[in-house]
């Protein structure tokens, strides 16, 4: 069973890392003068969206 479960974990981890990396680069490049505040403001909604989506799993 782990033979099936582990690839799913791998795909999720890889997908999440790629999305996170893309968003980080996208935020930095799309801003003329990125500052910690503007980068954080660009990333926080996405972090919040991901976390809220995952947290919904804990509701029936």
């Amino acid at each position, binding site marked *: *069973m782990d033979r*099936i*479960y582990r690839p*799913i*974990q791998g795909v*999720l981890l890889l*997908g999440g890392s790629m*999305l996170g990396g893309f968003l980080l680069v996208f935020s930095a490049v799309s801003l003329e003068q990125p500052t910690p*505040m*503007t980068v*954080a*403001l660009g990333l*926080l*909604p*996405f*972090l*919040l*969206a*991901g*976390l*809220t*989506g*995952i*947290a*919904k*799993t*804990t*509701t*029936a």
Partner: protein
Amino acid sequence: MIGTVGSLVQETFKRWLLATSLYIVAALSASLFLGAFLGAVGYMLHYGVCGTAPSCALPNAVGALPVGLLAIAYAASDLGLIRLPRPTVMDRVPATWWQKWQPYKAALLYGGALGLGITTQITFSAFYILCAWCFVNGNVAYGALLMATYGTARAVVLLPVSWRIYRDAHSHERLGRLLSKGSVARDIQAVLLGVFGVELLLSLLR
């Protein structure tokens, strides 16, 4: 959804995987559509009123200020400090869909309905703030990307979680343990929501 689509693990792997995949695609599409729709409405409303002058660039303080204040207020609400309304279209998606169209059509319908987010009780109020932020930004692509992140995270996590819970016996205890972590998840999300609100307000002061 863990209790409906997830429990198919106990039947056949193929049925579970196909139903879950359909659920994920439908949920992701619905969330993406919601974000794009809110961005488009925000764009049309803003530029319809303000015009295309450089001073009308989005997001602006007029939109960001209420979103920042609402984020802090709803963070306090999630932490149980104050009570705020949580409007929804429906209280919950009908359980009869599962009996009527099981499993594939039902998985599509549940995915589409739950991907929109407002067809069930909103436990995590960050959802409202994300919708408001899509509207205030007035950008179709940004709205679609932001809500797609929500939809993807919400739907894809069903795969490993349902697999872990239902692959063998003791599934009820495992499901109970997961659901008992809801308050912890809400607290973490509330803190992050509060940080977002404060940061948004601070960005207006600069």
